């Protein structure tokens, strides 16, 4: 048997752990001795669900993907709660505090990112730690700390009106706090939305009870008032918001220091090629938020998992040629009560680009498509969740769009409307099980079958699943009425729909919506 290679993975988050899972699923545990470093002190959890945990929708334990026992069962050596300190590429080893050293044949760096903390005065205490009552929102620990603090807090300012900030704000609103969002841009989510969509989103969020302040550059945290850890947040424009909790959600920065120190090629992120290996070391790979591919950083889970899968295919030998060509990026705002999906470009990029949009401020609906070469280059969909899946799939697959663009923005339900049997042509099939047309039912009536039972027996209509019996009955009744009256036809409105039917003699059964306007199955 071949000697196993040694594979070291730095990072046990959304990218690193997913990669190892994908690798193990492809027999990777038989090919490699796998060693992992995870800075957070537990197994792997789904970071995506943290906003849901903050909002109290998800229990923290329900976000766990792999408990510590899983690593053991797979024969993976996990340094949980241990930060990798140094990569010695000459010696092909990773070192960490406490005398840990692990040699590798292949190294995967998946160090993710950390919150960007803008320079706000008074944010740190005398020892350099972030002041009590001030939080960033990245880890399960951050989330737990926020929940604990929120229990006794009254008023919070969330710095940052991007995806994460809005999700944090919504979560804290659920916990009963008065929530203010201070956003630097002149409209919310300015990197994903255009101005009108941002304005409409603001309106929607205000409707939920959030207080939103635009064009706000946080300057400093103001000193505590009676007993509270923080007193408020002062802005560059001089305005000040009193609060007892501050959440900073101003974006993230990739963790690249370790790679930089070890001499790997680094720009904004660790520069990787299509096979996800580093520019200047083919035995070292980088995936996830810390990796820079064709000049781009990725912060969303779909591309991270795509990278994880591709690298696993490659290193397991399943597909040694597997390569990452970038992905089309889309996201949804995970805020209860708001349907917002964004993907690709938010504005026209070339003269040939085509824009289709629809706006209905009263209902908070805004839909916009950017179309390039007949395919979707980007979209914003606010306030209409039912439209989202179709547009999202068209974007993901880069489908050629229908000439009638509106069909994408207003997809038909595919459902048959309520059909009035009176309107059906005689060739229409009423009983699907037995292929009985309206004409045959009418014929049976005219042949002297006066009851539903007799008509069913004569035509076999309704003798299969029975679902058409109401329609058969309606036709039988209609025919009876026809026979009962030779009077003039009158027009009436039933169920909001104009139908023609003959005037009925007094003793004839009344036409009701039940026996006339029945759904066709």
């Amino acid at each position, binding site marked *: 048997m071949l000697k196993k290679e040694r594979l070291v993975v730095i990072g046990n988050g959304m990218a690193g752990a997913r990669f190892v899972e994908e690798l193990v699923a492809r027999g990777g545990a038989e090919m490699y001795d796998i060693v992992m470093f995870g800075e957070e002190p537990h197994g792997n959890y789904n970071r*995506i669900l943290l906003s*849901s945990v903050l909002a109290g929708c998800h229990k923290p334990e329900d976000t766990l993907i792999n408990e510590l026992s899983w690593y053991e069962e797979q024969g993976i050596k996990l340094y949980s709660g241990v930060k990798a300190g140094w990569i010695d590429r000459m010696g092909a080893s990773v070192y960490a505090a406490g005398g840990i050293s692990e040699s590798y044949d292949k190294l995967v760096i998946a160090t993710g990112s950390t919150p960007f903390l803008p320079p706000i005065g008074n944010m740190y205490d005398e020892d350099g730690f972030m002041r009590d009552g001030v939080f960033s929102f990245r880890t399960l620990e951050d989330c737990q700390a926020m929940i604990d603090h929120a229990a006794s807090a009254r008023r919070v300012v969330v710095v940052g009106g991007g995806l994460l900030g809005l999700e944090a704000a919504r979560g804290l609103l659920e916990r009963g706090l008065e929530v203010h969002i201070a956003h630097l841009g002149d409209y919310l989510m300015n990197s994903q939305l255009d101005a009108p969509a941002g304005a409409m989103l603001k309106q929607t969020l205000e409707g939920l009870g959030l207080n939103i302040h635009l064009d706000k550059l946080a300057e400093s945290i103001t000193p505590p008032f009676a007993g509270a850890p923080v007193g408020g947040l002062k802005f560059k424009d001089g305005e000040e918001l009193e609060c007892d909790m501050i959440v900073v959600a101003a974006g993230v920065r990739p963790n690249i220091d370790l790679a930089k120190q070890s001499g790997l090629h680094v720009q904004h992120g660790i520069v990787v090629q299509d096979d996800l290996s580093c520019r200047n070391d083919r035995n070292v790979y980088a995936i996830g938020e810390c990796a820079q591919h064709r000049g781009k950083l990725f912060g969303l889970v779909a591309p991270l998992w795509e990278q994880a899968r591709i690298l696993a295919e490659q290193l397991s030998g399943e597909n040694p040629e597997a390569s990452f060509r970038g992905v089309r990026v889309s996201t949804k705002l995970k805020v209860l009560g708001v349907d917002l999906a964004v993907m690709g470009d938010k504005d026209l990029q070339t003269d040939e680009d085509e824009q289709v949009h629809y706006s209905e401020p009263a209902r908070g609906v805004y839909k916009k498509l950017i179309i390039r070469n007949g395919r979707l280059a980007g979209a914003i969909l606010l306030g209409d969740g039912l439209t989202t899946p179709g547009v999202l799939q068209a974007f993901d697959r880069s489908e050629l769009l229908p000439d009638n663009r509106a069909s994408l923005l207003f997809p038909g339900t595919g459902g048959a409307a309520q059909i009035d049997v009176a309107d059906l042509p005689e060739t229409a099939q009423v009983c699907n099980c037995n292929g009985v047309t309206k004409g045959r039912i009418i014929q049976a009536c005219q042949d002297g079958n006066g009851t539903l039972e007799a008509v069913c027996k004569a035509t076999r209509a309704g003798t299969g699943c029975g679902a058409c019996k109401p329609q058969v009955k309606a036709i039988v009744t209609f025919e009876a009425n026809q026979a009962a009256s030779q009077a003039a036809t009158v027009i009436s409105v039933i169920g909001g729909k104009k139908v023609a039917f003959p005037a009925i003699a007094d003793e004839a059964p009344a036409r009701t919506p039940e026996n006339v306007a029945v759904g066709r199955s």
Partner: protein
Amino acid sequence: MVSTPFQHDTATHCPYCAFQCGMRLSGPRESVVVDGDEAFPVNKGALCIKGWTSAAPLAHPERLLNPLVRNAAGDLVPATWDEALARVAEAFKSIRTDYGADAVGIFGGGSLTNEKSYLLGKFARVALGTANIDYNGRFCMSSAAAAGIRALGIDRGMPFPLEDIASAEVVLLAGSNVAETMPPIMQYFEAQRANGGVLVVSDPRRTATAAAADLHLRLTPGTDAVLANGLLHLLIRDDLIDHDYIQERTEGFERVRQIAATYWPERVERITGIPEAELLQTARLLGRANTAMILTGRGAEQQAQGVTNVLSFINLALALGKVGRPNSGFGCLTGQGNGQGGREHGQKADQLPGYRLIADPAARQHVAAVWDFPEEELPGPGKSAYELLDSLGPEGGIRSLLVLGSNVVVSAPHGNNIRERLESLDFLVVSDFFLSETALLADVVLPSAQWAEEEGTITNLEGRVIRRRRAFAPPEGVLTDLELLEQLAARLGRERWFTYASPEAVFDELRAASAGGAADYSGITYEKIEAGQGVFWPCPSVDHPGTPRLFAESFPTPSGRARFHPVLHRSPAEEPDEDFPLYLTTGRVLAQYQSGTQTRRIGELEDMASEPLAEINPTTAERYGLADGDMLTLETRRGAARVRALVTENIRPDTVFAPFHWPNEQSANLLTNPALDPTSRMPEFKVCAVRIVKD
């Protein structure tokens, strides 16, 4: 065997689907009057058009009334039974001598009675000594079967009677179009809804069933497990799972719960194409209901991940705490007439009667003792259906094949390959009552009796064993399949093991062979079936009343607990790309049945569905310049089929649906992908990549 005399007003069951409607036949064979049997508690008198017209093939002018043998000129010409059977026996013997016993294969069917399925399995192992027997039920129920055994310890499609549906507050029907495939079942869903119940259907198409539902989840083909995992995620999140039940009656939930953490709604929406709001609505309906059922059909099962798809829905039912509770639980809706019984008694490559595994030494000893045959001479497991067909010919090593009750040229995937394989055989013998597309390729064709001409038992989709009764003796020159197997065995020198006084005698031996197995029929007798409108298996002794409802106390697993299985979905084996940009999904229409051998010969049915109509969304039709009714060609990497366009909103824009009942250039199975499920060996009929070529 003695033939029973002509009987007037015979109570029997429809020859087609697993619903097995009770019907009464009267009048002469040439003009049989069919009536729904109101006394039978399953269909309660209802029949669909296929049932009403089911007697037409009995006296059909194209019916085979004598054996056919291929002559030196290559033509099929009439022959006597003696000539035909001699030829078959000679061919089998010489192939066995030259290439070994496994070089003779058998392909059976899910429409055969229990007695025939059982005897065919015994014939393979005892008369031919071949390991290679499998049947078309592999294309039907194998994924549900494998999942049921793994998770619940037993494979009985529905572990409760149909009547329970009417009292379920919520039913999720995953990938099943019963309004067309077994229309009389709809009375139970109608009753359920009349009782205030809610019906949710997941299907890429807005089928007649989906249209009758309260909520239609229009999922992307091949994403069933994502839907199930996504619903589980929401149930966990909103704490709508049954912790006590999970604790007391199941094992393995922890890992499943962790995997569910990776199926959050936004991700599930993106993959399945089902709006988040509908996912949440479905989860809440299921989670808040006191009684809820999840039922799967071929849509979820006929995929290369069919087993895990079904497991993911079982996970859901278990997490809800509904399996084994009144008017609740998990079930799969069996397709073919005897799809249930046909998979229990040794017609499958890896099985012996009573749902025993042929690789299990104890099972072998038990069955060998019942058969009075040396255990060491019983072969081991053979090849599964598609693999068996793919091994036909000199290369694969199976040089001769007996086909009974199946038309594989039309019904198996990758039809071009199947035809080539069949043509490469040294010898093919087909038993059927029409000259099917498969029979046309045979060296010998044996005319068989039809359903109304034979006695036996069928096990319906509920696990209820019922009686098929003879209304007419077979026409002169036609044998029942049981008689055929007896006579052929005698010519192979195995008469001692194949001499029965009646079909009931075959059944009595089946009872003994199944005794102690998972599908225990030992306590079921013809008399008991007749006295009680059927008996539900397992029924381990004659004084046992049968078992309509399973799992009330425990599960037939080693621990007595149901088992959760972690399911990570995979992409279909073939996904749309630039060359083949659309999904193709296949299925059935109401007025035709399976390969259409019978139904395409019935005028009334042909009037309703005379050719395959490919369902295409208006948006897609517009792109290809197609109007409703236009002819077009569908092409995949495996073949092409000519169909007519049915332009309809009922299909997703990214998907084309084609029914598979037609042969030759109209055959949808020329297109389908034979990628197999790793466990059940089920081919991926329900999803592959296709392109439209306009005329």
